[in-house]
């Protein structure tokens, strides 16, 4: 369909523009940030000569525009330059390559948990609207969004790790080492991140289901003799998926936010923990690299979600 193709392309170009503007902002903000990279690295024995040499080495003496273009050119090749202080001289691209899979794994894991939970709770609540089931499900949801995820993380450690000893309270087996190990050691962190999201998803699904249950076409389907199961699947649930998936997509920015702290608490070597360490060490290059990576992830996810929704909802494509 040309119309849909056009839709996809416009959205794509939109995302790309946002990405570009994003890189500019990140770059400028970091430039404006206090503190001189050179001093951060050389610290001990920084003389004017060494500083100058450093700036030359990192092209920090070039005009701003040139610096940006150079950096941007690097981004395209996934080359973010070298780390200043977090792990001096290390190629940031390599740092990210090692950590990105862990972050993505934990993120996806968390989403899986959140979606599973919300599908059950949300459906139960909507179908038993007004009953105790509904009340408890919705209350649970409110509680979920009210807990700071990192605190919940510690409560999980206290209970399931220190208390019952079911799960490791620290450390993460990268999926590349052992997938099963990753699922096991990643459970608590994923759960901690998932809790608030599951809550949001549950509310969304409940709302959507309730709205669609009352739609006339559901009654028409009934009048046509369609079974309750058919009506729920093809009329109610199917249509509720659209707002649901949209929200899942929107939540990604909170998800990744949670990842940052949780990774640190559970000692997961991900992009989040890297960014925090870089922040402490004032490693501008790494911080801005992480920011750009997160920006990219969000835009990519949102784009995919857009495509999915467009496929689910013909009315979107105009």
């Amino acid at each position, binding site marked *: 369909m040309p119309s849909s193709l056009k839709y996809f392309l416009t959205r794509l170009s939109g995302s790309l523009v946002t990405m570009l503007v*994003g890189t500019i902002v990140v770059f400028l903000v970091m430039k404006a940030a206090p503190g001189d990279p050179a001093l951060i690295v050389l610290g001990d024995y920084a003389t004017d000569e060494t500083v100058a040499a450093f700036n030359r080495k990192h092209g920090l003496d070039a005009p701003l525009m040139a610096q940006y273009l150079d950096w941007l050119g690097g981004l395209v090749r996934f080359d973010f330059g070298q780390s200043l202080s977090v792990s001096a001289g290390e190629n940031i691209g390599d740092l990210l390559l090692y950590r990105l899979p862990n972050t993505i794994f934990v993120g996806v894991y968390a989403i899986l948990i959140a979606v599973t939970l919300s599908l059950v709770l949300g459906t139960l609540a909507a179908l038993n609207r*007004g009953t105790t089931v509904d009340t408890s499900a919705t209350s649970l949801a*409110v509680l979920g969004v009210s807990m*700071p995820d990192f605190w919940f993380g*510690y409560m999980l450690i206290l209970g399931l790790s220190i208390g019952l000893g079911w799960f490791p309270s620290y450390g993460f087996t990268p999926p590349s080492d052992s997938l099963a190990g990753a699922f096991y050691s990643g459970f608590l962190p994923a759960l901690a991140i998932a809790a608030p999201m599951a809550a949001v998803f549950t509310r969304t699904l409940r709302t959507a289901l309730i709205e669609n249950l009352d739609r006339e076409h559901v009654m028409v389907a009934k009048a046509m003799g369609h079974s309750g199961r058919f009506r729920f699947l093809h009329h109610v649930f199917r249509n509720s998926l659209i707002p649901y998936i949209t929200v899942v997509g929107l939540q990604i920015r909170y998800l*990744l936010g949670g990842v*940052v702290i949780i990774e640190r608490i559970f000692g997961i070597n991900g992009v989040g923990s890297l960014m*925090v360490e870089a922040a*402490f060490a004032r490693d501008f290059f790494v911080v801005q690299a992480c920011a750009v990576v997160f920006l990219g992830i*969000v835009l990519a996810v949102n784009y995919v979600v857009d495509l999915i929704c467009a496929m689910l909802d013909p009315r979107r494509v105009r």
Partner: protein
Amino acid sequence: MKLKHFLHNRTALAGLTITTLFLLAVFFGPMLSKWSSNQHDFMNALQPPSWAHPFGTDSLGRDVITRVLEGARISLLISVAGVFAAMVFGITAGLYSGFHGGWMDVIVMRVVDLLFAFPAFVLALFLMVALGYGVTNVALAIMLVYLPIFARITRNMTETVRNDAYVQAAQVMGQGTPRILFREILPNISAPILVQATIAVAFGIVIESGLSFIGLGVQPPTPSLGVIMADGQEYFRRSPWVLTLSGLSVTVALLGLNLLGDGIRDLSDPRLKVRE
């Protein structure tokens, strides 16, 4: 939305009650406490909860509940400040772009999209590095996290009511745009914004605690919730109560705000009500 309905809505009522109690505790609690938030007593460090110290004492022998209340006040003020700023700018931008559309709309929405594209906490973290730590910058970060949300809601709402009779009437009567926007339109779209605001304040507190928790936000000895939890986290194994109870207080506070938000939403959209 009449007060009567409001009081008949359980969710809203519960939310209102908790929030009120929370505010009272936060603003008057410290006065009643016989301790002050920075009054140390090295001989009584890390006392478990007792009648004298309901939440126990921390590593410097400071009364945790007093600190939590003080901290809650600080965190709350930071969050409110940030959210308020976000509302001022977001709503204004949203109103104008929604009302006028055109290039202005395009630009505003582009900026909104951009801010939206950053994970909330990452954006905050990034700003802390750029601007440096400290109270005001945390508030600033919160503002930037919520600005897009308010802008987008307001814009979309404005767009829907733009052609409603009362708006047109106002135009015909030759009222100035600002007046139409803030006097005619804003009141009619305030409900969802109000909902967002309460929820935003709640999450603002989470952001503050998060930043301070990892040490990039408010700095000690200022007792913000995050600072207190960070301190408690260090000797979490030895004396879990500091982190547990301070975090629990946060949860209760947020619960109140979220319930309040839901309540208002229910009232503006009764179909979703859980119970009559």
